[in-house]
């Protein structure tokens, strides 16, 4: 049997496909092993940088990445709470919450002091309309700073249009409403689970 005829045979095609699948799979395994540590480091740095953003400078002196407790919220889902402490005294907590905005979920990271005052808020992920709803990003406007220092007891947790304390944007009410709701729920979660969050290890 000559080579040309062999190439036309079904077994040649099968072997060829198997060979290429094996080669490409091997390349991916090697590359994954090679990049996994760097990706892990980059993601940790990312998380640390964002955790740091929602707490004032000098608020804590511990490693937020390692001091973590898992607390169940009202729907039974695990929430990862990063605890901030200074000189061994617990100062507050940082965790994610989400609510529904105009175009899908808005994920926010909230830093709260132990006595229940918001220290900082950052929107981690959203799909709101560029130019209208994206003013919730700190890079686009200072709107999220309005939450700082607010607690459940000293603010009305609604946008102004609904009779609350927080500004909406021209052309976008649903987006800020969603963020206000997410931060309020974070405070309620913090209050309801205070003992569990600050329990010793």
């Amino acid at each position, binding site marked *: 049997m000559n080579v040309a005829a062999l190439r*036309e045979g079904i077994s040649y095609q099968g072997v*060829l496909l198997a060979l*290429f699948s094996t080669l490409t799979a091997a390349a991916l395994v090697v590359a*994954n092993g090679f*990049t996994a540590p760097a*990706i892990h480091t*980059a993601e940790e740095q*990312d998380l640390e940088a964002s955790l740091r953003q929602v707490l004032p400078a000098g608020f804590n002196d511990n490693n937020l990445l390692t001091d973590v407790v898992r607390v169940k919220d009202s729907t039974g889902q695990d929430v990862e709470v990063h605890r901030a402490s200074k000189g061994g005294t617990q100062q507050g907590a940082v965790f994610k919450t989400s609510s529904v905005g105009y175009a899908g979920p808005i994920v926010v990271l909230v830093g709260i002091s132990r006595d229940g005052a918001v220290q900082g808020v950052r929107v981690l992920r959203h799909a709101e309309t*560029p*130019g209208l709803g994206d003013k919730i990003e700190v890079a686009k406007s200072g709107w999220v700073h309005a939450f700082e220092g607010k607690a459940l007891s000293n603010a009305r947790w609604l946008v102004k249009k609904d009779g609350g304390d927080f500004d909406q944007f021209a052309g976008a009410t649903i987006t800020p409403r969603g963020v206000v709701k997410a931060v309020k729920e974070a405070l309620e979660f913090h209050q309801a689970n205070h003992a569990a969050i600050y329990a010793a290890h």
Partner: protein
Amino acid sequence: MKTKDIIRNGLWDQNVVLAQILGMCPTMALTSTATNGLGMGLATTAVLVVSNMAVSSVRGVVTEQVRIPVFIAIIATIVTLVDLGLNAWMHDLYKVLGLYIALIVANCAILGRAEAFACKNGVLASGADGLFMGLGFTAALTSIGVVREIIGSGTLFSQASLLLGPHFAFLETRVLPGYGGTLMMILPPGGFLTLGLLLAVRRRIEMRRDARHCGGVVAQASHCGA
């Protein structure tokens, strides 16, 4: 094929976006700023060069019947490698482009070049074809991004330092101070409008050139088409 032709085809005559109208997904999705267009263009160029060379080097082994799955496996692998590499070593850029890198697999321009060029030509020529097709793609995406960004937000090359490093921070300019931006240009319709505009400009240049070549010479009119 001569190198000069490869360069000319990639950048102008067969430009992926402006002549072949391929790769419309990234063309619409990633051109709301010039920086995004440039970043996506460069990532696609890298994939094109490597995939063209890889496809070309196995062209003697791969048979007609199974070439498409083999090419797709090669392209998907290369895209995943770029994805992992960016995530590991250029993490800030990855956060901007990450969602779209995987979509390079589905960019028909890549498989198109494998089919139309790389599986018939040598490794070096295929690499060059990938490079210039990619650069043509990058130029088109960046141009669309420039138009959309200036009209849409009044800035140019915002976040360029994220893509190219801090040395390129000088590129980030506010072209129209105090201009609030036109939302529609950032949203998908702006992509279609700008692409249509650039296609019209390209067509006009081509028509001018043809008219100059053939202007008034009846004997040559046949090769100018109707």
